[in-house]
């Protein structure tokens, strides 16, 4: 509860949160007024028509068609208003602007992993720049989780084997709580993190600092979190081939030829996955990995080389 917050809602941390709040207050007060009318009528009737004489038998009341129509039509109009309004804000809540800064979120029992395209990875703090839309591409490593920042009024379930996303644009530097809101086991209530919203300059500095100095193979291992849904590192089968022992092998391809899995082959397969399809697999790998930075690609290849 802060200076702008109320008993009911926490301080809004985004402009869109303010829009959600306006809608909340409209429905809240409309409901409260109607509820008060029902309760007042109820109490009034209870007192006014209290049984005075035990042998009283009141006559039936002629029901008013007009009244009946009023309390069907008026609430219907009201709910259609809130439906339309809610729909409008809902679409905004889930339509990330195209220029959003994207961060990969990987949830697992009971921790978060936030991976930045520049190579940085963080676990308990999600650094975001203030004043810039941020889109989170989220997936889970095990069971269902859900990403919730009360101050931003955003929430979405995180599902294994699938990407879901939320976006927000923090308006003020500060720290905002992240909760997991889909039950995920013993430490579900401990699966929290913090959004740290900082200025563009501070963010750039943080990213640069975090993205340096990692040995390439370690960086690659972090980046590889995005690949694990399809590619194993221990030889077990997946949608795509395992990475174990891949480096240096003679790889049979779907067209019958073979290729030596050297650095060039690995790089090509990441950024242009349809160029050479491994024997026994479908051409289903997404093309989005071409967006990885050179440093991340180097890291990935260095990591794959360690998987003997």
């Amino acid at each position, binding site marked *: 509860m802060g200076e702008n917050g109320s008993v009911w809602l926490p301080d809004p941390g985004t402009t869109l949160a303010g829009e959600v709040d306006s*809608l909340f207050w409209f429905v809240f007060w409309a409901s409260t007024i109607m509820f008060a009318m029902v309760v007042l009528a109820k109490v009034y009737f209870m007192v006014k028509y209290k049984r*005075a004489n035990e042998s009283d038998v009141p006559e039936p009341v002629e029901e008013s068609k007009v009244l009946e129509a009023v309390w069907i039509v008026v609430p219907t109009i009201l709910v259609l208003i*809130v439906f339309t309004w809610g729909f409008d804000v809902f679409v905004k809540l889930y339509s990330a602007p195209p220029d959003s800064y994207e961060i990969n979120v990987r949830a697992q029992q009971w921790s978060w992993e936030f991976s930045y395209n520049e190579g940085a990875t963080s676990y308990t703090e999600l650094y975001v720049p203030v004043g810039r839309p941020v889109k989170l591409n989220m997936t889970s490593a095990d069971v269902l989780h859900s990403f919730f920042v009360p101050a931003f009024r955003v929430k979405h379930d995180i599902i294994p084997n699938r990407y879901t996303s939320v976006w927000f644009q923090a308006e003020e530097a500060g720290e905002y709580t992240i909760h997991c809101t889909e039950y995920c086991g013993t430490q579900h209530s401990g699966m929290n993190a913090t959004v740290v919203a900082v200025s563009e300059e501070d963010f750039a500095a943080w990213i640069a600092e975090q993205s340096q100095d990692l040995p390439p193979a370690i960086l690659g291992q972090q980046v590889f979190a995005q690949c694990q849904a399809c590619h194993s590192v221990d030889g077990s089968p997946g949608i795509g081939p395992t990475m174990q022992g891949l480096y240096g092998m003679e790889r049979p391809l779907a067209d019958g030829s073979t290729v030596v899995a050297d650095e060039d082959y690995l790089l090509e397969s990441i950024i242009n996955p349809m160029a050479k399809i491994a024997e026994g697999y479908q051409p289903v790998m997404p093309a989005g990995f071409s967006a990885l930075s050179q440093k991340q690609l180097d890291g990935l290849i260095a990591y794959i080389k360690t998987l003997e």
Partner: protein
Amino acid sequence: MSHSAPGLNYLNHSKGFKSWALTLDHKRIGIMYMVAVSLAFLAGGILAILVRLELLGPGETIMGPDAYNQSFTLHAVLMVFAFIIPAIPAVMGNFVLPIQLGAKDVAFPRLNLASLYIYLIGAVIAMMALVNGRIDGGWTFYAPYSTSIGNGILFVTAGVFVMGFSSILTGLNFIVTVHKMRAPGLTWNRLPLFIWSIYATSIVQVLATPVIGITVLLLFLEKAFSIGIFDPALGGDPVLFQHFFWFYSHPAVYIMILPAFGVISDLMGTFSRHQVSGYKFVALSSVAIAFLGFLVWGHHMFVSGQSAVSSVVFSLITYLIGIPTGVKVINWVQTMYKGSVQLKSPMLYAIMFLFTFSIGGFTGIILGVLAIDVHLHDTYFVVAHFHYVMMGGNVIAALGGLHYWWPKMFGKMYNETLAKIAAFLVFFGFNLTFFPQFIMGAQGMPRRYYDYLPQYEFYHALSTYGSWVLAAGLFLIMFYMIASLINGKKAGLNPWGALTLEWTHTTTPPDHHNFHDTPVVTRGAYDFHLAKHLFEHGGEVTELDLGGDGSAATPEEAPVPNEPVA
């Protein structure tokens, strides 16, 4: 006027364990259900008190996270599957429905007894989870978490599967009974609204329950044989489980609330001594809600990953179903208008229902708004909302029905003063327990949390204090109800001056065969103005209203009823 063999009724006409265990009498089956669901409610309630106690302060209070997670899960499973779903239909439906219809039993008495045993077997199987591994994650059992834990889930799903058959068979029985066994003159327009609502409930039970059966069966198979249906690691889809689950569990919400509508309608009519306002609307909207209830399951899944288009459609249909429910509340309030309102303890619960259920309804509208639900989903706001609907709706109505029909069931009056004190404690305790949960939920407190941030401590503490007041009220009810059986004042034939057949045409407690002769119905269930002769001597009606049906007045002349046909 004598109306029964002296002192003989359904409770004492035969004695011994077998006379109960093998009875085909719907009244005895109803009473046995009452004992069973009361035990489930007691166990679920004690777990609720422990859960609230743990949440009194942040960090560990009385138990660790695993014990807490299993406690709230077991609380939910017991309350939903073993208590709320059977409570009103199986207890009051069984006891009251055939008598209100003027029938001597349900259509299939043996099936009825089988339903009871199937329910008990299912409950026992589900409870075996306790000694066969952990069971946590709430009553929704979302995959793949639910299949990633121990084998407890096998027992719970098997238990729910078995209990489902009980629900289906009871529903089927009631549908046939209502269609085929109404007394002469008891047209659809004269039916008590309790019958209408149980009828609508039965439709949902028959149509929806098979879906949860299939869903938990698939979950069982996935767990037992690693068949990939819901678990993505095996090639399944976890969102599919949610669709299946809510395809049943949203209609199940109406299995839980429609019977409550029926009880409240009867209470408002009787204690206002007035026609229930908008009778046809209340009756038919129950049936309409039963069908529309199948089309809104997706409103539980706005943030789950289902398509945005379906979220929009589900939100819209949710409002369509909200309107008739809201109009019903207005109808109940309007029933008192120019009526003759008597605030006996059953009526206090009806009045309470209008308050708590309305809050549950309005907060449901808030949750139905797409953009707001994104914020409130899976927070305590939802927890508070469904407790206002399930407990503030179903349980409060069940308590009203219990106080209303108790004299008829056992022939004893409970202490009215204690009943009023208990009603106040329940009302105050309930609101103190659950209202703060709306606030902390809107502030962002997630549900199913063992531990929480210090900012929520004030609301959690209030909620826990409320649970003590609520528990005190409920234990007081248990106390004076049991006391009434031992030394309660003898109940009259029709202490509330009601017009439905269980009050006007049977003894208290009812005879083994309900009626010696089939009653002939000449007026609607709430046509008090057509029954003025009953009230000439005051509020408590002390004579049976046998006018018009020419029934035999003495047991010697009464025809021996046929044995029910299996």
